[in-house]
């Protein structure tokens, strides 16, 4: 099937094209060089902007904690019922609804409407991996993948405590990536979730676990080395120590220094950029942290922007979630210690614009966006749903692109918070090209997805077409056309078809010597056999299996 998109302006930063007037041609799901062949379908775009489909590298879309959030927050589901889809034959498709924690189906549909075609679940627990994959199989219109949470599991803490050679750590990481069908390694509060199981209520970067002679720094540097040596494309995806704690700016700066030049991705940096200045002992450290990010090209970040309104926070960081559960709104929360592996905490939350802390959190996120200079090293996220639902992205894009709009919003917030932020003085406005970098080109690059995030021949035909509009929120709220693997799935902002996605996984060389140890560990200690813990390829995507990216190891 040959499709021609005529008369659009191509915004493809990966290939240096900034609104270049040219046709884009698709053949059987891939972008091809323009030909004079007759097309099966031809779309006249009338000058609309053509980009690769959006890629979200950090959004909680699947796994047990999302189901716990759905269970806890039936209010969210009732307030956002399923829409009928008259374009689909059959009308009602049983797609569910919800806003903060939409159903699998609604997640795929709402993302597609915004022009996104690939989304990564950033906190899959090994113990819950099979369930996360079952859920991802039911997300239409999106390719997905998941980062495996490691670093709080007793197996790796025992290895590190025993001074195991790095090769053994690497073998374990490689085995776990394969067994859980994961795409990258996430560390959540390195060692802290584990320490909470031993009744520690906080754990600093150089503080020892109550049981193991291991610090968060040990966990971090050991796992950074593992993914580097295994050749996993995405660096360690780190949710650092002390999330949400005023004064965690020092931890964040120390964490960056701890990398000693190795690659590290700091996720939802906004929640880790808090100082203790001012009479409320809560202040923005965005400028200091952005300066450190700017000075360290090995560091990439995503923001985790706070957006005002009701949401649900869901995190593997049970230590932090337990600490914050007093802020729950409505007043209820769930916590869980999980399988010698990690944990989870679900706390409903309402970010209020008249609240000093919430308003300053909003400002800190925007400061980070505007003060980190390299758009290839910062990514647009709200840590969905923790800072706010992903459906608020168009509003966030306008805040970044439109200074007057941003300042007008700022002027309505809590007065004390306004006095504590530099935001009003920052003149930077993101360009369209920079937005395309943040939301497409850069995530593809940092994830190692060479055929995504751009529109050169050979690219996957995941394409979003947006009508130019000076109101950038309106422009990005509804894509005019979205293609998934060359199939039209959104027209005029409405889902018109459901395309099956794939799930990206990585595979490394695995030293099989670790298998005997893991067999014994799972069988005797966990109480589940390693072979039943491991997920077969055929269990993914309804039997279609994953899309495998093979890692080339050896780097150090």
């Amino acid at each position, binding site marked *: 099937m040959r499709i021609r998109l005529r008369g659009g302006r191509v915004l493809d930063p990966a290939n240096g094209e900034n609104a270049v007037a040219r046709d884009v041609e698709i053949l059987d799901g891939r972008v091809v060089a323009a030909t004079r062949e007759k097309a099966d379908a031809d779309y006249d775009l009338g000058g609309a902007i053509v980009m690769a489909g959006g890629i979200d590298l950090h959004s909680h879309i699947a796994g047990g904690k999302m189901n716990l959030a759905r269970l806890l927050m039936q209010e969210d589901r009732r307030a956002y019922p399923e829409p009928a889809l008259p374009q689909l034959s*059959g009308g009602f498709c049983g797609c569910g609804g919800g806003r903060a924690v939409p159903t699998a189906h609604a997640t795929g549909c709402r993302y597609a409407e915004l022009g996104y075609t690939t989304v990564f679940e950033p906190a899959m627990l090994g113990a819950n991996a099979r369930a996360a994959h079952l859920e991802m199989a039911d997300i239409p219109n999106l390719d997905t993948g998941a980062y495996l949470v490691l670093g709080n599991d007793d197996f790796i803490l025992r290895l590190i405590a025993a001074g195991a050679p790095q090769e053994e750590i690497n073998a374990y990481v490689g085995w776990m990536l394969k067994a859980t069908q994961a795409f990258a390694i996430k560390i959540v509060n390195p060692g802290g979730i584990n320490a909470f199981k*031993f009744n520690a209520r906080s754990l600093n970067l150089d503080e020892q676990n109550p049981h193991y002679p291991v610090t968060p720094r040990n966990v971090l540097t050991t796992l950074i080395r593992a993914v580097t040596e295994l050749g996993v494309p995405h660096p360690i995806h780190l949710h650092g120590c002390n999330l949400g704690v005023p004064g965690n700016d020092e931890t964040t700066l120390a964490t960056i220094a701890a990398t000693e030049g190795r690659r590290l991705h700091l996720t939802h940096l906004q929640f880790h950029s808090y100082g203790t200045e001012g009479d409320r002992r809560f202040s923005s450290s965005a400028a200091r942290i952005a300066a450190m990010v700017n000075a360290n090209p090995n560091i990439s970040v995503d923001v985790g922007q706070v957006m005002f309104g009701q949401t649900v926070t869901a995190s593997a960081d049970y230590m932090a979630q337990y600490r914050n559960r007093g802020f729950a709104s409505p007043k209820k929360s769930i916590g869980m210690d999980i399988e010698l592996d990690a944990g989870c905490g679900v706390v409903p939350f309402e970010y209020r614009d008249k609240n000093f802390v919430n308003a300053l959190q909003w400002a800190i996120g925007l400061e980070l966006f505007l003060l980190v200079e390299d758009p290839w090293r910062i990514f647009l996220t709200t840590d969905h749903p923790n800072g706010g639902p992903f459906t608020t992205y168009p509003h966030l894009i306008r805040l970044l692109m439109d200074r007057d709009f941003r300042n007008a919003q700022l002027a309505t917030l809590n007065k004390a918070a306004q006095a504590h932020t530099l935001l009003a003085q920052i003149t930077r406005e993101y360009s369209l090209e920079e937005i395309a970098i943040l939301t497409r080109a850069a995530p593809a690059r940092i994830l190692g997805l060479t055929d995504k995030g751009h529109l050169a021949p050979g690219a996957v035909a995941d394409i979003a077409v947006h009508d130019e509009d000076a109101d950038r929120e309106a422009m990005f709220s509804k894509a005019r056309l979205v293609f998934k693997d060359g199939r039209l799935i959104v027209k005029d902002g409405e889902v018109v078809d459901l395309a099956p996605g794939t799930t990206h996984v990585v595979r490394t060389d695995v030293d099989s010597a670790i298998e005997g140890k893991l067999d014994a560990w799972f069988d005797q200690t966990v109480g589940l056999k390693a072979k039943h813990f491991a997920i077969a390829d055929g269990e993914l995507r309804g039997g279609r299996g994953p899309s495998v990216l093979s890692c080339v190891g050896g780097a150090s």
Partner: protein
Amino acid sequence: MNGEIGAGAPLVVKDVVCGFCGLGCDDLAVEVTGREVRPAASVCPEAARLLRRLDTGAGTGPASGEVYDRARTLLASARAPVFAGLGADIEGGRALLDLATRTGGVLDHAASAGLFANYAAVQRTGWLATTLAEIRNRCDVLLVIGEDPTAAFGRFFERALPREALFAAARHVIILGGALGAQARRQLGTARVTELAAGDPVAALSALAQLVAGPPPRGSSFGGVAAEALAEAAAALKGAAYAVATWNAASLDRADLVAERATRLIDALNATTRGGVFPLGGRDNIIGINQLLLWRLGYPLRTAIRGEGSEHDPALYATAAALEDADLMIWVSAFRPEPPPAFDGPVIVIGHPDTEFATPPDVFIPVGTPGVDHAGTVFRMDSIVSLPLGALRVATLPSVAEAVRRLVPAR
């Protein structure tokens, strides 16, 4: 896990995964001879009963095309169907949900009474929970509320409190409102056991929670348990490194209150030490089907799909209540030969071939058993871990998914 299966000498299949009670044992051994399956080792009485297959030559064959036609006709004319039982693996659940989105109807599971007793507590306040591997290795004080769990979960203590643990140096089981049988005692080995007989377990548990949270309640006994004994139990719980409260809501009166009080007790403990609730339940993959509904519809079981939307109501859409307004029941029970509840209207059964009916249903589609006749996925009771069931023999009956997909009208 299942090698070549011939009709000759028995083949011992090891590491069989069991999907019946929800405890998720995956170390069973069974003997397979042709179509016959016999438990061999590490099999509890319930699993032994449900796994055993003897080739009597009188087995039920697959349903004919006319049977499926009749089912389709009933589904097409139904205005208010109820999909009940829902004893199916995840693929079966997916197929049933796809069917229900076309026909509309209420979705509920045979074992959901216990689940919703627990959810009454979860949805009001939330809770702090834990999973099996944490209990195995951390739990030094286990509070059991109600009867000995061994009756419904045959290997519970063996699995939850093995002698070897990474962290727990000793085990202490406090059973409130029940007594431990010989099986439980054997599995617990050297663990210390305190039995507190209670005439009113809810009252006793309320007092225990209050003793943990403070200030202590006034009185000399609560629910039939002496105040001193409860104070000792409270001290043990507060002194624990990792305390766990467990109960089987399906076997308790006023289970919603038990869940609520246990939640409160664990909440209070976590102010100074650590612990979690571990609600027992989860037979016939109820947890898996419930999880599936949550990610597909955004609601748990006891949800109705009607017209252009779905809605959840734990009372209105419980099977018995929903049947009062139903004009068709679709009963699904693949794990065990459980007959449907009484119903005046037409009944379609997609069930275990050995099901015995008081009244023959209008349509009976026999299906294979997940984990015996075909592979599948089921969830453990903790809702976190799910397990791959394998096939022990060549199937002669369809799976629930295969049977139901034949019923879905083409769009």
